[in-house]
């Protein structure tokens, strides 16, 4: 997985075939693993690269704009309007621009990108996204010498997003990356999944996805991308600075104050499936570890 790309659009039946094939493979692997106890040490006992089902990806979401329960986003986002949609790129750049969703889909070719998603809560999925590198989009503008960080702002529309009527987070949802993180080829602008248009509950019409960071870093329904000089304050840092840091890289050695991050549960596995070990940078260390050389990742959690 990681950067492996299949055809641009794969029909769902092919996905399913691939799934059943992988399942058969996985079954063999797990039978083998059964003989080596303890199971938990067998990080790859179950096939952790098997795609999560479309149903689980689209009905088990954290998207507080539509409610705080996992099923809420699916239930409450179906009538959410994503057209017309415009994204503004502004801040410390030479010339701010506004792009419509149509312009974006015409200019940038979305490809299939299969990435692992690790939620800070301790569960994970494998999702076949459609998207392109954020660096392609950001190369449309010229940052000034002051620009050090990029801030993402999600849509604010309490009429349509009933979760925003409650002060659970400081709406609109904000996230941020250092510029080198934002320009990394793995940082993806997502426009779809499973070869289809991005469902509302997954952040339609456009979201970002950063595979080596906890899921909440990947802001949904983005309307504004702003280049800034100072490290932006994300919504979750604002809500609980002790628990959620700016970097939020997946790191099995740095625990959340309320739970361990050493292991995770794979979504869609049965009740008897063991936890698997969480990988440093969610398994993308080869690609991204050099972004953080010399940094104390315990301090900069």
């Amino acid at each position, binding site marked *: 997985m990681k950067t492996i790309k299949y055809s641009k659009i794969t029909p769902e039946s092919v996905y399913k075939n691939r799934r059943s094939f992988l399942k058969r493979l996985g079954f063999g692997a797990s039978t083998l693993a059964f003989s080596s106890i*303890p*199971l*938990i040490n067998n990080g790859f006992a179950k096939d952790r690269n098997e795609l999560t089902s479309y149903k*689980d990806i689209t*009905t*088990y979401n954290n998207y507080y704009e539509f409610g705080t329960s*996992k099923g809420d986003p699916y239930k409450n986002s179906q009538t959410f309007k994503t057209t017309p949609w415009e994204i503004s790129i502004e801040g410390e750049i030479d010339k701010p621009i506004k792009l419509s969703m149509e312009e974006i889909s015409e200019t940038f070719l979305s490809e299939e990108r299969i990435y692992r998603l690790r939620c800070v809560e301790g*569960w994970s999925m494998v999702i076949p996204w459609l998207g392109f590198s954020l660096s392609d989009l950001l190369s449309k503008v010229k940052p000034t010498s002051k620009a050090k960080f990029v801030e993402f702002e999600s849509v604010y529309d309490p009429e349509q997003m009933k979760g925003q009527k409650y002060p659970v987070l400081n709406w609109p949802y904000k996230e941020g990356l250092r510029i080198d993180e934002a320009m990394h080829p793995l940082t993806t602008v997502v426009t779809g999944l499973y070869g289809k248009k991005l469902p509302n509950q997954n952040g339609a019409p456009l979201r970002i996805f950063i595979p080596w960071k906890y899921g909440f870093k990947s802001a949904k329904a983005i309307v504004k991308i702003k280049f800034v000089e100072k490290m932006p304050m994300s919504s979750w840092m604002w809500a*609980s600075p002790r628990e959620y840091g700016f970097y939020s890289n997946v790191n099995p050695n740095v*625990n959340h104050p*309320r*739970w*361990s991050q*050493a*292991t995770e*549960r794979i*979504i*869609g596995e*049965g*009740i*008897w499936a*063991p*936890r698997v070990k969480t990988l440093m940078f969610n398994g993308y260390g080869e690609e991204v570890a050099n972004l953080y050389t010399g940094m104390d990742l315990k301090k900069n959690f």
Partner: protein
Amino acid sequence: MKKYFKPSIFFLSTIPFIFIFYKTGFNKLGPEPVKEITHFTGEWTLIFICLTLSMSPLKKITNMSIWINFRRMLGLFVFFYATLHLLTYVGLDYRFNWQPIMDDVVKKRYVFIGFAAWLLLVPLAITSSKKMMKLLKNNWKKLHRLIYAVAIFGSLHYIWLSKTIFFKPLIYFIIIVVLLLFRIKIKKKEVKYG
């Protein structure tokens, strides 16, 4: 009529267990089944703690002593659901892998206090029989006041593990505090008249 009360309450108390057993068996627990079982058994433990603590205030309020007949059984259901909760965490979630569990018990205060609450329940469950009641005499009552500590620990366990205290953890906390305040009042009166 009265003789049906206890069996009915026993049956009603098993319904949450039957419910989660059915859901587990038929794979109806959603994408994170283990978490679902953990939360479900944990919440029902708290509910049974509240029910157990309600019996003597109910006796006072209604002037009917029948409530006390259910108290021990409800208390044993606290132990039952708390044990299911613990087993789900230790067995199903962590596969009896002691290293991470011990890490949790020491480092995470909500795990520590939750485990402490369960430990305190053990002597209560062991000494719940009539025989033990007679054997321990006056000490039995003193020993079983441990349920007050269990209730507070259980409520703190829920508050500390939650993202925010709003609203369910707070509601359980308030209910438990109110139920415990009843005890203080009762005690004061005893002192006055005694």
